[in-house]
Structure formats: structure tokens, C-alpha cells
């Protein structure tokens, strides 16, 4: 909880630092976003770990964003691949710095040993633009994992930057 409060202060501090002449490029039909990271780590006496995740998002209308999450996790004898589909409905006013949304996500994961898992979840969140193409995003996700084991629900809350690109 302390981390969330600290994150909130950081977020507020970041927002206060910016001027008012910001024209958000999203949500707008044709705009897109790409979240991605790649990490490779190898220590002297252990196997390497590689993490790759990418989530392209595309606004098919001024309000509807389609997202395609994909991730690969390799290391310590555990290879996992995750892919899925996400939809977000942005219901704020176009051009405003504050861009709230609701949505849903489905992800399918496979791993060694025949492991399979399906995740269904709902999300609620908001972007706060700190530059024309950069927003601080807060998102709450509640969902359920479905495997051969009993279903397990989970809750996550995250804050971070999101980069958008104009479709023009």
C-alpha cells in the first residue's frame, strides 16, 4: 500500500510539472500505442532469463481500442508464451488530458509440460497525458485464471507511462 501511495505522489508530481499546451493524440481513430520491453539476464553460475512482452494497441474508432498482448518468458526450465486480445472503450471527451476507459481482456498461456491457462478479466483505468504522445496510465484489473485446477481470481493495480503514436 505504501508503494501505491508513493506512486500516487510521483504521479501527482509528474502531472504538476507539465504545461497546459498539450494536445493528446489519443483517443482518436487511427492512433496506436506500443508497449514493449525486452530483458535478457545471465549470471555467471546460472541459466539465462529472457523476458519479452509487446502489446500493440490500435484505435479502430475514436473510442474503441483493440489490443493484442503477447509475451514470452524463458528461463529456469520454464518457457511460457502468453497471447490474447483486449478491448477498451474510452468514454471521456476527445482532446482532454484525462482519458478514462473500461475494457476486457482475454489471455491464453502455454508452458512446458502441457500447462495451459486462460485468463478473463475486466479493466478500468485512465490515461493522464503529460505530453501530446505520452500518458501516465493507471489501471485496475480484476479477473480469473481458468486451468485444470480450481479457478483463481486475482486483482492487480498498476501505474506507468504509455506512449501513443498519431495515425496521421
Amino acid at each position, binding site marked *: 500500500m505504501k508503494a*501505491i501511495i508513493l506512486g500516487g505522489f510521483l504521479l501527482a508530481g*509528474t502531472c504538476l510539472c507539465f504545461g497546459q499546451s498539450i494536445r493528446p493524440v489519443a483517443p482518436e481513430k487511427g492512433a496506436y500505442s506500443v508497449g514493449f520491453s525486452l*530483458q*535478457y539476464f545471465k549470471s555467471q553460475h546460472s541459466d539465462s532469463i529472457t523476458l519479452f512482452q509487446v502489446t500493440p494497441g490500435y484505435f479502430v474508432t475514436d473510442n474503441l481500442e483493440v489490443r493484442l498482448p503477447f509475451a514470452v518468458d524463458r528461463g529456469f526450465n520454464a518457457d511460457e508464451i502468453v497471447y490474447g486480445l483486449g478491448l477498451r472503450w474510452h468514454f471521456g471527451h476527445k482532446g482532454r488530458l484525462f482519458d478514462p476507459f473500461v475494457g476486457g481482456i482475454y489471455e491464453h498461456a502455454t508452458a512446458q509440460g502441457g500447462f495451459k491457462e486462460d485468463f478473463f478479466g475486466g479493466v478500468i483505468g485512465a490515461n493522464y497525458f503529460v*505530453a501530446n*504522445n505520452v500518458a501516465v496510465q493507471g489501471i485496475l484489473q480484476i479477473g480469473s485464471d481458468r486451468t485444470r485446477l480450481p479457478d483463481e*481470481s486475482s*486483482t492487480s493495480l498498476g*501505474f506507468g*507511462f504509455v506512449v501513443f503514436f498519431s495515425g496521421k
Partner: protein
Amino acid sequence: MKLITTGCLLAGALTLCSAQNITPMAPKKGVWSLGFSVDYFKAQHSDSQTSLRAVPTYFVTDNIEVGLAVGWDHSSGFDSTFFGPEVRYYFGGPNNSLLKPFVGAVYQVNHATGESDSTLWGGEVGAHWFVANNVAVTGTFIWEQFRQSGATESEIQFDMGFTIFFAGLK
């Protein structure tokens, strides 16, 4: 290795998709960047996990960037923290080049519940490739030495992701 290749292809695709009239805002004295994330996760049958990461950096000259990495992880009965300075020197290339290579050094102190403190120092080489005036795809290769309770271990790390820059106060 295939994943690294995929990441590089993605970076290349991003580059091709970006507009050509990009004027990178860094490196330049007064510019700063901020990387941060806050994550909380709670599954039905397990304890919650919380993670905080922040890396603010600042260009003290047109070529030198200093930063401070801080992080905190928390789960039931366990906390770990780290902090440490970073410095980067940017070299080569004309001012309007989209490619901004750098070399740098990192130092970190780590503390975790029930463990002795550890330190990490290392050198890095990398580059930003600007895909917007204020956004770059950054790749870094780091060689580092981890030391805990008198034992040392060398590590290598390759990271790729976005870096977001902000103009300084004018």
C-alpha cells in the same frame, strides 16, 4: 537470442512507422527523463505483491546524464529495496541524428529482509533511437559485478524499451 532478434525487428518496425521530421530533445543540458512503474498484485490464494520502480535522470551538460535508480518490493514478511546512481556519457553523431549512443556506469546498493546487504557495479554501452521528439527506443548492454557476503558474481544484461524525455524548465 530469437527474442532479442524479435525485439530488434520490432524496434526497426517502430522506426519505419515513425515520421521523418523528428528533432530529438536529448541529449541536451536541462532535459530530464523519468521511468517509473508501480504494480500491485493479489491472487485469491496467495499474499499480495507490491513493486515500485523509479529512475529519474537529468542532463547536467549536453553530454552527461546522471540518474538515481530506486526500487522497492514487498510481499508478506519480505521487503527488498535498492538505490544507486547512474551516469552516462553521450558521444558522436550530429545533433539532428536520431541515433544517440552512450557509455555509462551504474552502482547499486541492495537490502533485503533476512539477507546481508549486497552491492552491484557495472559498465554499460547503449543507444537511444528516437521515434518521436520526446520518445526513444533504448537498448543497453550491461556488464556488472554483484557482491554479497564477500562473494562476487559477474552478470550480463541486455534491456530494450522506451525512454521518455521531458524538456527542462525554460
